């Protein structure tokens, strides 16, 4: 199912999307499949699987550490696509940095995404101005190129982004990097309203999913009141991190946490 169809299906069920992010290969490639299954059992609708890069400038310390650990454990794009292909039960999107896409070759990378059942590609250091070559290739495959919109995105830029967007828009909730935060940013509502107005005026109704700093059920609830989905990443990575230090049943915790988040996306 294409990503936008997934959002449509959820809408018919009066649900919003819960998107869960984990770094592939953290703590190991084998664990990733188990962790993904726990997330899926817990009810996430879309799995965002990170392909780690050595220099992740858009990520906060939690995902940075996970990336470093994953790379040390031997994660690479070949292994990533193998792992991703084995995960079933949710729609999948890939998050990575542009250099990894470039070095594999744009077409090769997108083709591998499609073969592994990855329906979307998020590249946080590829702004719309530089996206044309990759966008053109994505159009030939069943993989959407997913763009980010930040609180600082100006209207002319937003128009360019909406024009190129498909799948969903990754709405960056705050000025900053990824990472769990105590409080949800106050500016989310006006930020979403601004994007929606632009969507209306351009007649480009792409679903909006909000990420960065979303780490609690009440954050998900608040986000789902105004947007089409919530993205949670660092909070899951933290559970994995803690699980490595204790004897706790990490997989059960992940599943339960995902379930507690998913509940908040229903009936909103």
């Amino acid at each position: 199912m294409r990503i936008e169809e997934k959002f449509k299906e959820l809408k018919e069920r009066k649900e919003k999307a819960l998107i869960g992010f984990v770094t592939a290969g953290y703590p190991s490639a084998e664990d990733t499949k188990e962790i993904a299954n726990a997330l899926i059992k817990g009810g996430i609708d879309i799995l965002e699987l990170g392909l780690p890069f050595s220099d992740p400038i858009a990520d906060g310390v939690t995902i940075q550490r996970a990336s470093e650990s994953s790379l040390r454990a031997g994660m690479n794009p070949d292994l990533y696509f193998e792992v991703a292909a084995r995960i079933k039960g949710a729609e999948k999107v890939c998050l990575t940095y542009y250099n990894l896409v470039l070095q594999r070759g744009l077409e090769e990378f997108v083709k591998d995404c499609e073969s592994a059942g990855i329906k979307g590609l998020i590249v946080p250091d590829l702004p719309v101005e530089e996206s044309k070559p990759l966008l053109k290739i994505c159009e030939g495959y069943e993989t959407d190129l997913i763009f980010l919109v930040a609180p600082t995105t100006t209207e002319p830029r937003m128009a360019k982004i909406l024009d190129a967007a498909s799948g969903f828009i990754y709405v960056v909730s705050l000025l900053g990097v990824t990472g769990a935060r105590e409080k949800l940013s106050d500016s989310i509502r006006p930020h979403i309203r601004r994007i929606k107005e632009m969507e209306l005026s351009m007649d480009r109704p792409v679903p909006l999913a909000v990420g960065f700093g979303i780490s609690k059920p009440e954050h998900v609830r608040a986000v789902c009141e105004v947007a089409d989905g919530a993205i949670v990443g660092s909070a899951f990575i933290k559970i994995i991190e803690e699980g490595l230090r204790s004897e706790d049943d990490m997989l059960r915790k992940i599943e339960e946490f995902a379930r507690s988040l998913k509940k908040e996306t229903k009936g909103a």
Partner: protein
Amino acid sequence: MLSKPDEQGKYGIYGGKFAPEVLMSALEELEEAFNSFSHDKSFKEELELLLRTYAGRPTSLYFAKNLSEAFGARIYLKREDLVHGGAHKLNNTLGQCLLAKHMGKRRIIAETGAGQHGVATAMAAAVLELECEVYMGTEDVERQKLNVFRMKLLGARVNPVDSGSKTLKDAINESMRDWVTNVENTYYLIGSVVGPHPYPLMVREFQRVIGKETKEQILNAEGRLPDTIIACVGGGSNAMGIFYDFLEDDEVELIGVEAAGKGLESGEHGASICAGTKGVLHGMYSKLLQDRHGQIKQSYSFAPGLDYPGVGPELAYLAESGRVKMVSATDEETLSAFEILSMSEGIIPALESAHAIHYAIEEAKRKAKERRNHLIVVNLSGRGDKDIFLVEKVLGDKCNVH
């Protein structure tokens, strides 16, 4: 040929803006501010006054008589080591701090490897009354204690970075993260001709003063342009600074010297153009040190200022086009040039600049055989006080000190 970035900030295929969306409007704002202020008469006068009275410009172009006699060419040194702070770095930080001030940004952040750019930023921020925070890898904090202390004395806060390889590239990552978070009140002051557009353009423009002065000085001294200009290349700011105003003078050969570290074949070096491949890092498309998957490799050089796995996009472009010739020098070769210059001219060069000195000596020897009065200018981009402890450790008993 003059190279000018296109609308996307590209030099040929190199450059561009590969930055997180949060920063894109800030980069646009910066570009606009730079374009308007760099043509503003009062801005230019203010900067010119600072460069003259605070930084100590113009720096001299010194005829290195002993070195010339020893190796058979006419060798001049552009004395950027005499700039306040001990390196060319201040040319850029004064320019950018002034720009930040005019843009109403009171908080300056910067990355630093060896600490030279950090110190130069702290100086410029102090004199222009701006707040300053510097990111520095914990590895470098340990190696460069003196510069850490200098920065603190100058009123800057030094934030140690403990991620990744704990060196310059990680300090850049962390600065970008800070900028993403505080973009509304913060100015990110990049120290070399790297990063997303407009930084490579802006830093080159602020460093161009080196080449402009050199041109006038060499014409006064010799009545002609040099045959060869040599500069070391890490990110490439001192090289672009001295090269740029000679780009259209086809008779002047421009040579950039990268760090070959323990030898190019050892894999432990900082030679992004000589031995790297194309890719995207820190917001730019350029030549990088990376593995086949695109993960960035750790660079190596005993000269911390050349220890970076990327290079400025304009330089990558000029090298590819053939206008700039790129070569490299190993630690060992450099060390010997470091000693030679110290003894023959009484000038202790920065280890970075000693790479260029090494190549100048080699070039002089080659040309001497052709019996020509070969005229060489070397950009002596910094002084070597910061390096003496490291050199002492490496040389140990071998050191020819009486």
